């Protein structure tokens, strides 16, 4: 079973190699992510208001941690929605 999945994946990968994602915060050498900076945070929430996962946004683990606390703080102050419908 596992074997089958693997072959499927690799043949798919052959024609569509994954694009290497790079953390956009690391690129700009950002240390702190401010919860007040709504414009940036907005890019990292999905349309339902969820925090976008690392595999989607390509954020590194260090910045993802910072990002998630920043988003949570912004939610408390009603700068970002807890959920959107």
């Amino acid at each position, binding site marked *: 079973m596992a*074997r*089958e999945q*693997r*072959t499927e994946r*690799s*043949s798919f*990968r*052959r024609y569509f190699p994954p694009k*290497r994602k*790079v*953390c956009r915060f*690391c690129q700009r*050498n950002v*240390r*702190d992510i401010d*919860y*007040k900076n709504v414009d940036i945070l907005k890019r990292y929430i999905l349309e339902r208001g969820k925090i976008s996962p690392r595999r989607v946004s*390509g954020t*590194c*683990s*260090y910045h993802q941690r910072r990002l998630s606390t920043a988003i949570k*703080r912004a*939610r*408390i*102050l*009603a*700068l*970002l*929605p*807890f959920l959107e419908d």
Partner: protein
Amino acid sequence: MTQYETAFLISPNLEEEAIEKVISQMAEVVKKKGKLINEDRWGKKRLAYPIQNFEEAFYVFFLYEADPSIPFELERRFKQTEAILRFLTIKKETREKVRKKEKEIPEEEKSLSAAEEIPTEGEDFEEEAEVAAERKEEDEEADEKAEADAREEAVEKEEKVDEEASLPEEKAKEED
């Protein structure tokens, strides 16, 4: 002394003077024992979701340096004041906690352990070790970049080999 940042939302149905009064009251609490570094007012801003049926609120941010007793006192006041819809106090990180050195390594590989970053000990990638040994003779700056590249290449090669190895099986399955 620690740096704190306190944000609070004032209800929008207050008069401007009343809002002013609340803010100055809170500022005094801070000034009494601490140092108010910055006071930021965003004015009336739309909320992302209604709080107490209000659709907008007056945003104020205090950045100050004080003993830990001050934020407690502030928050106690906030709770007593009905006009305050929300508040949030955070401790500002003044100093960087130990952060690993900046190197020209792709992000995904930063998470690898330090041992693997030393090229000569790449057990899984023998090719990589060889390449690295060759490159050592070149100058250092180019070295780092090339190493990273070589590593990527090695990984890609491996994947390709995998694919090709798996292809015959696939065909066999299809025939079945």
